[in-house]
């Protein structure tokens, strides 16, 4: 199980998961849809990565559920960020302990 160092309350903040490639983004989308977890498939924010691909954006209060679901499906999250009120992207750590 992965646990995530995030406040559980709904802060209205958005989180971004960068995955290995478009295949895994679309697989994640399929799984999140299946679980009724709200999310969007969006371009990887330039501030996070120079990669030109897509990322999964979701409300940060779902971060625990999202990372657990992806971990259970063996989908590697290469980067995970929270967009702060100031518009910056702060990395989140996933503890796969």
């Amino acid at each position, binding site marked *: 199980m992965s646990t995530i160092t995030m406040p559980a309350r709904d802060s209205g903040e958005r989180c971004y998961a960068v995955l290995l*490639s*478009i*295949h*895994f983004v679309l*697989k994640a989308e399929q799984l999140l849809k299946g679980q009724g977890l709200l999310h969007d498939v969006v371009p*990887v924010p330039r501030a996070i990565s120079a990669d*030109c691909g*897509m990322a999964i954006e979701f409300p940060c209060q779902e971060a625990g559920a999202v990372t657990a679901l992806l971990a259970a499906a063996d989908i590697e999250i290469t980067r995970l960020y929270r967009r702060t009120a100031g518009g910056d992207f702060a990395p989140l750590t996933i503890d796969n302990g």
Partner: protein
Amino acid sequence: MPDQPPPVYLDNAATSFPKPAAVAETMARLLDTTALSPGRAAHRYSLAAGRVIFAARETLAALFGCRDSSRIVFTNNVTTSLNIGLQGLLRPGDHVITTGMEHNSVMRPLRLLERLRGIRLSFLPTAATGEVDVDALPRLLASDTRLIVVNHLSNVTGSLVDLATLARFKGDALLMVDAAQSAGSEAIDVTAQGIDFLAFTGHKSLFGPTGTGGFYLRPGIVLPPLVVGGTGSNSEHEVQPDFAPDAYEAGTPNTLGIAGLAAGVAFVRETGLAAIRRHEETLTTRLLDGLGQIPGLTVYGPGPGPHRGPVVSIRLAGISVSDLAFALDRDHGILGRGGLHCAPAAHRSIATYPEGTLRLSLGYFNTEAEIDSCLAALDRVRSRC
């Protein structure tokens, strides 16, 4: 000129024809409505193309009993898939067990690696019908046997290889299956059948267009890719990603073809493999029964039944294979194929080398009436020999 009846296409083992209507419809719609470069940009057309490929992977994974669709890799044909598998897996001095029924898309890479890497080959014994003696596997296995590679359904005789027995005895060796002829016509379950590498082509019984194919690679197996380049992923790095499917899919894929392939596979899944198989077996039995009535005609391959596929090889006394193929086409509109079918090893095994055979290969869209036309035509050619 009197109206000619439409040709009877009996060369489905080369490529299937016709395709289900949805194949052309899907391809035409996509070509007209969207750009087809997947996973490269973040705009909606690129995402739509990514979805096309993703859906195709999921459909093929479901067809082959593969739980993780990232293990389905797309290539241009089964030849490319087999080269990636063989050239990637085999190390200097490795021992490989294969059969006497292989297509050149397996034999040529093996012969190349014999020369370049000193691999050693052993062959499972093959009967004159093309049937492979899989029970001989334990005798051939050695401590350094890296791979067992077999043609699942012979493109020359229609004989089927018993994969279950190979998987049962394979030990530490990997099992690679050339499913060029069987995918879409025989039940394949990579998980249940213990297949480590399944190579398929899109344009035969999966009803896709030419230029499509791929392979399944069991989780945990890592191969060096044959071709490296842009994948749309890890773009900030100058080294190839090492995860499937991206590691093996450098270059813009044949998105349009893969969309057509997915439509073909959807047709197979909707129709049902059991129904496809039943129809093909009915037609094959009708053909074999009729061929048995024609004097001077020899069939090379197993008799009718569930242990064979819809590929039939014949010769007719008094006429060469090439003249027979030409006469059937020109005078009767029956389109078969004469020669070696890119499988000289198989023809050596069934003692039809070097002339080869006339191959009549049936597909789901053939009819009993077409089989009867073929039989009548053969009888007429015979009466003139």
